[in-house]
Every structure is written in C-alpha cells, then in structure tokens.
C-alpha cells in the first residue's frame, strides 16, 4: 500500500523542494514568470481628499496680516495635503475674497512655486469678485496653478502692470541680467529714460542674496515682484525659507533673546548690524543694514518686512507688531517697498 506522506515535516520538506525547483528554473532563464516582490506590486490607490483651505474675504497682507499668515500656514500644513491617483495637491478656496493686495499675491505665488518644487499641485477656486479675480489673473498668479478639476489654467499674457521674476539655486548671470532689465524698466516707467539704477539693483541683490544664502529652502528660490502704478512702482521680494528671526534663533542664546522687549526689536537689530554674522566672520552682515540705509536716505519708501511672527513698518513704527503666542507665523521673509520719481532723483547719477 502506498504510504501517505502527510506529516507536517513532510509537507514542509515538499514546500521547500518546490520552491527550490522554481528558483532553479528562474535562474536557468527558463520561461518561468518572475514573482513580483510585494513592494513592486501596484498598491491600491486610495484617495485622501482634505477640506480646502478657505481664504477670508479680506486677503490684504498689510492690513489683515494675521489672517493672511493663517492661510499661508494652512496651505503649507500636512493637514491640507490631499492625494488622489498618486497626485498630491492642496486646494485653496479664494471664492469669498473681495479684497486682495499685491503682497498676498506675491506670497501665494512663492508658496505655489515651493509646493510645485515639492511635486505638490496647488488647486485653486478663484474669487467670485470680478475685480479680485482679474487682479489675480493679470498678476500671472494662475500660470502655475490648477483648477478644481486638476487641469492647468490657461497661461495669461505677460502683464504690462505686474511682473514677477523668479530664480532658484545659484544666481546665474542671466538671472542677474533679467533683474537689471527689470530695474531699467522701472526707471523708464518713472522717468521715461531706460537706464541702470545702481541703488535699486543693490537693494535687490542684497535681499535676493540673503534668500539664496540663508533662507534654507530646498532650491534656494526667491521671487521678485514689481507692480507698476500711477507715478510709482511697488517691489516685493519673497522667500519661503526659515525666516530671519528663526535663523537668528539658531545661533543666539535664549538669554540674549530674552534681553529684548519684543521680537520686532530683535528684527530691527538685524537691520542695524547689532548681531554677529552666522558665519562668525567679522566682515559680514552688511546686506540688511544697507537696505535700511537706502530707506533712511529716501531711496525707497514704505519699507515693510514680514518674517516669522513679526511685521516691521519702517515708515510707521506704531504699526510694527510682534504676533503673540498661538498666533500664526510666516515661515519665510517678505519685503515690500515703493519708489517714485523723487526717490530716483536722489540717487540717479
């Protein structure tokens, strides 16, 4: 009678024998289907759609700073990150917005660029308010965005009035030339003559240089914005890195920070060369003081700086503010200033 090999030991031996045959056949390059490793198998794609980040009606950075910072923080939070079919995206709902300023558009554009760098799409519902919607379209804000169906918005024509210049990584000579051409265009707008304006170029280089060297963003990106108005030009420079105060925190002691009355005083100190350089080299720290000097000389007007939990209004100190504990912080640094013909008269040679 045939013996029945059904003991557990025999079953285990048989399983191992079959595996060995299978392995040998595969190694001998026979037509034997390769077994897929678990990691290679297509995992089931599960959609995880989060609620949109809903912008307030007043999205003016200078007048409603705290609310704007809240939106910027939410946009960059993990909680807003949706995923579907392998795509990651954040949904921004601007439908309620009835007031928006150039500062907010600059920061939204910088955040959109940063998300794009991280392979995250920014989907956006546009404001229902026609004036706001047109302002955003004209600014070129939509060029990097996706509609609520995930499709890119149609590219808008380059605006005559609002313009962004972007860069990342090493400041290339071509970026540098573009900045110079932009400065020439500004001079042309204000005076009718297209020529270099050295002081304006210096301010932009100092600020963009700070963003490239110290912001700590993955791609060292910076965003320079220019908005032409009647007899004036508004400049913005934005980076979405660590921010000036955060950078200072990393190298100065807690005791040192506590010796100041408020964080806006500490930030003012960075523009007055009160602290040593991050690199501990005595010759450094000339950039931000140079920006302040230009403001003091009237080369630029209405200088405002927003970083971490502080906004400085150089033109009106009573508006400068340190946002309290629990208030949102802006991860990054934002500068805004204005120029008119009188500013240029002081410096043009």
């Amino acid at each position, binding site marked *: 009678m045939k013996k029945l090999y059904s003991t557990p030991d025999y079953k285990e031996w048989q399983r191992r024998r079959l595996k060995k045959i299978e392995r040998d056949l595969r190694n001998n390059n026979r037509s034997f289907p390769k077994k897929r490793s678990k990691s290679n198998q297509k995992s089931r794609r599960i959609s995880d759609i989060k609620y949109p980040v809903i912008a307030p009606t007043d999205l003016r950075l200078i007048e409603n700073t705290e609310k704007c910072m809240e939106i910027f923080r939410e946009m960059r939070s993990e909680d807003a990150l949706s995923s579907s079919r392998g795509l990651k995206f954040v949904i921004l709902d601007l439908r309620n917005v009835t007031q928006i300023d150039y500062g907010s558009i600059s920061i939204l554009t910088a955040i959109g660029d940063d998300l794009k760098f991280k392979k995250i799409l920014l989907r956006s519902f546009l404001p229902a308010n026609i004036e706001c919607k047109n302002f955003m379209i004209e600014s070129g804000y939509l060029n990097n965005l996706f509609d609520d169906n995930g499709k890119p918005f149609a590219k808008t024509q380059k605006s005559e009035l609002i313009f962004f210049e972007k860069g990342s990584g*090493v*400041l*290339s*000579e071509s970026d*540098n*030339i573009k900045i*110079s051409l932009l*400065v020439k265009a500004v001079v042309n707008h204000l005076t009718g003559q297209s020529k*270099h*304006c*050295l*002081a*304006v*170029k*210096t301010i932009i*280089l*100092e600020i963009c*240089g700070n963003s*490239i*060297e110290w912001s700590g963003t993955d791609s*060292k990106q910076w965003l320079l914005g220019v908005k032409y108005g009647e007899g004036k030009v508004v400049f913005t420079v934005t980076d979405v890195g660590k921010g000036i105060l955060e950078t200072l925190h990393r190298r100065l002691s807690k005791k040192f920070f506590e010796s100041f009355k408020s964080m806006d005083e500490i930030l003012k100190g960075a523009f007055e060369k009160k602290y040593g350089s991050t*690199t501990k*080299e*005595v*010759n*450094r720290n*000339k*950039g931000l003081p*140079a920006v302040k000097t230009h403001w003091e000389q009237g080369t630029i007007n209405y200088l405002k700086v927003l970083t971490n939990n502080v906004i400085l209004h150089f033109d009106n100190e009573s508006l400068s503010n340190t946002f309290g504990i629990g208030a949102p912080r802006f991860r990054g640094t934002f500068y805004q200033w204005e120029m008119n013909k009188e500013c240029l008269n002081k410096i043009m*040679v």
Partner: protein
Amino acid sequence: MKTISVFENFSEFPALRHCNISEKSGEEFYHTILNKEFNEQYEKGEKLIVNLDNTAGYASSFLDEAFGNLVFDFTLDIVKNHVEVISIQEPHWKTMIENETYPQWEERRVNKKNPVVTRTHGAWFRLDKNEIKSGIWEHPVAA
C-alpha cells in the same frame, strides 16, 4: 600704474559673494582678475587702480569678498599703499571698502580666520613670511 575696471575686465553684472551662490561673484573676480593684477603691480612697486563704475550695480558682499581677500593675502599696509579704488557713481563703496572691509579683513588675517573658497581655484599669490609665493592656499569645504 595700471587701471582695471570691473565692467571692462570682468562683468557688467557683478553678483554676490561666493561662487556657490552666484555666477560672477566677488570670489571669482578676486581669483581670476584682482589677485594677479595686484601682484603684478606690487612686484613692479606700482599702484593698481580699480574702477568700480559703469556696472549695473553691486551687492556689498561682492566688493567685501574681492577686496577683503586682497588684504588677507597681502596685508592691510601693502594693499593701502598699492591700491586705489575709484567709484565716482557710488562713492559710498569706496568708503565701505576702506573703512570697513580693509580693517575687518586685517583682523581676520591677524586672527588666522582664513577666507572661504567655494570652488577650487588655480594657484594665486600670497605674502608668506615676507615673500610672495604662488599656491593653492585654500580648498573648498564640503557643506
């Protein structure tokens, strides 16, 4: 006496401090132009005139790195005696170089806080034990 111009001999668009953050940096200007031109004039016992005018504008860090390295390599006294900076369009750069960059880099030299290079450069000149020597004195440090 020889005159060099940043605009004519280097670029209309000088940029930032180091090569690892910008093209046409102060570090590049020093290592490709300023060090060699200065050494040539110094060895002849003559002055080098550096004209800063006619570019599209400077960042302070560009000038600080270029002229600061010169002080570090040749000492403050020698640089003061053999360099003249011309900056008619923006006289404050001449003031900054002479009143801030020069003494600050002399302090670095005395304290042996060596310059940072962010790219490997060809040999350059440095005053070493009262003698001008050519060598690769600094190497980039990995971040």
